[in-house]
């Protein structure tokens, strides 16, 4: 088992960790105090840059560097938007942080807001997380009562407000520009970049968008220093990461582990192995939008670089485990249905492409496919990729392409025999 210190989940199961007195007792708000007492906003940013922290929402962009993209001495207000629109299938880490340790999220948000000189932060939380929104609002009021939030924080002349804004059940709003459009009260259509949000974001003002897990690392970095943080993980992917295990695994759930942990260790030592003693067939390692890995690839390390070398991505680290009984045509169909449902319809290649992918997969599922359909599917994928405003289109194709690439025999069987090659059987107890 890996030797490391937990940064995010250290107190996650501590009784009443969501209450401010317990959070403070466990060292909470020390980082905010330290920053306001002895650090300039620039030195907070500097420390985050030094830590090498990379965004945990999926893209892995260096967090501190992102902050430096803001224009210097902007005449317009600077906004911080926390992306809590967790909707990537297979991902459920931010929800646990928000529900169980909301003050960690709030403290991270306050530190980031201080660093970028922002007086108004928004936490955009997916609408279905009603309990999470209540937890955050309660934490905000507790923090305000203790002087950690609001006007003149800790008597240091710093004002920061946080508003919890609830979404309405649209996956697309996890895309940062769609999130901003949605926060402005509109249908959540992504915007063309550039301009990037750091230049023209919310209300056309400079805006930084960071993921919940990303910001939850900041209190540790400020408390313990960048070097301590980057002692865990790999040189290019420092720190720990919450890996979300779901699907056919004995112990599904969230596991905070150092970046670079071998997938095998994650599945078999932490996850307790494949459910019901069956054999592993495939793993989708980074949320439903990334290419799958076949069972023989489980020695890959779980960090941005290693997974890229293996032809896939760390993404949101939503690890979906698929056992030998799963029909991969059905799995591809399931995800195609998701992307078709969630495409906002703005760009033709994505709107039409996701529609036709789903229609063809449905046809194959029903035993009415033809062998020509496989090349047609790949051609549609090619016509979507790179031709849309936002990454949703590109996210819809890996499940199709990687299942055809690795399991073409199952598709062909489906088409010629009009049925699944394997069948999952009852799983609901």
């Amino acid at each position, binding site marked *: 088992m890996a030797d490391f210190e937990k940064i995010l989940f250290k107190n996650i199961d501590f009784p009443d960790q969501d209450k401010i007195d317990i959070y403070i007792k466990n060292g909470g708000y020390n980082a905010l105090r330290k920053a306001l007492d002895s650090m300039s906003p620039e030195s907070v940013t500097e420390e985050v840059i030094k830590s090498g922290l990379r965004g945990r929402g999926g893209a892995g962009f260096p967090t501190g560097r992102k902050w430096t993209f803001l224009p210097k001495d902007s005449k317009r207000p600077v906004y911080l938007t926390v992306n809590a629109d967790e909707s990537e299938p297979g991902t459920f880490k931010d929800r646990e942080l928000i529900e169980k340790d909301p003050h960690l999220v709030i403290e991270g948000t306050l530190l980031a807001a201080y660093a970028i000189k922002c007086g108004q932060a928004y936490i955009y939380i997916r609408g279905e997380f009603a309990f999470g929104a209540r937890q955050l609002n309660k934490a905000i009021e507790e923090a305000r009562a203790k002087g950690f939030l609001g006007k003149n924080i800790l008597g240091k002349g710093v004002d920061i407000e946080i508003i919890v804004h609830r979404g309405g*059940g649209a996956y697309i709003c996890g895309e940062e520009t769609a999130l901003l459009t949605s926060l*402005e009260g509109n249908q959540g259509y992504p915007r063309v970049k550039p301009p990037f949000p750091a230049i023209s974001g919310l209300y056309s003002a400079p805006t930084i968008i960071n993921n919940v897990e990303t910001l939850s690392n900041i209190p540790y970095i400020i408390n313990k220093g960048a070097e301590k943080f980057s002692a865990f993980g790999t040189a290019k992917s420092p720190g720990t990461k919450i890996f979300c295990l779901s699907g056919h695994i004995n112990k599904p759930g969230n596991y905070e582990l150092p970046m670079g942990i071998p997938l095998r260790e994650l599945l078999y030592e932490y996850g307790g192995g494949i459910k019901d003693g069956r054999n592993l067939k495939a793993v989708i390692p980074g949320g439903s939008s990334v290419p799958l890995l076949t069972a023989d690839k489980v020695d890959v390390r779980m960090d941005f670089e290693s997974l890229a070398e293996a032809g896939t991505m760390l993404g949101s680290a939503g690890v979906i485990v698929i056992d030998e009984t799963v029909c991969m045509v059905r799995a591809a169909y399931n995800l195609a249905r998701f992307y078709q449902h969630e495409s906002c319809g703005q760009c033709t290649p994505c709107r039409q492409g996701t529609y036709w992918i789903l229609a063809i997969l449905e046809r194959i599922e029903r035993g009415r496919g033809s062998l020509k359909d496989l090349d047609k599917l790949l051609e549609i994928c090619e016509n979507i990729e790179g031709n849309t405003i936002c990454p949703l289109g590109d996210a819809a194709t890996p499940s199709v392409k990687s299942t055809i690439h690795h399991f073409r025999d199952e598709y062909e069987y489906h088409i010629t025999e009009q049925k699944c090659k394997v069948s999952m059987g009852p799983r*609901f107890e």
Partner: protein
Amino acid sequence: MGTTVNKLLSEKSIKELNRLKGLYPVRKSVVLMVLHVIYDQFGYIQPEALKEAAGIMEIPLIDFHQAASFYTMFPREAVGKYHIQVCRTLSCELRGSQELVAFLKEKLEIDMGGITSDSMFSLTEVECLGSCGTAPMMQINDTYYENLTRARVEQILDDLRSKSGNG
């Protein structure tokens, strides 16, 4: 003219709308939050109540309709007192969400999208609810029910029925 007719919004909802007023630098930002207020009170976007809310917020009604047609979590027609939404995306399907749906249909004697004759339950399928590690799962109104088994589903339905005094 100062006379109030058929006020549908509850005092609690009106209080929340007033709190939301002026919260954002740009007024229209509040649109989704207002839809949540209506949804929380009625369980769907009740059109007359929405009109009242739009009036209070001084935001054109069309802005709310546009949002309500885009964001899928707000039903636009009345649903059951307990609106059941089963997650159907991959991680849940791998853990038996299709069987969960079949079981609910059988227990409630309704089809997908249907409402029970006593208007107690309605059933629908939704995409990923961010609860993949506790699959299969369903959301009833704003509460998540996770790690579901047949026995647990029966218990939940019974509890909700008896909570409503129809047990």
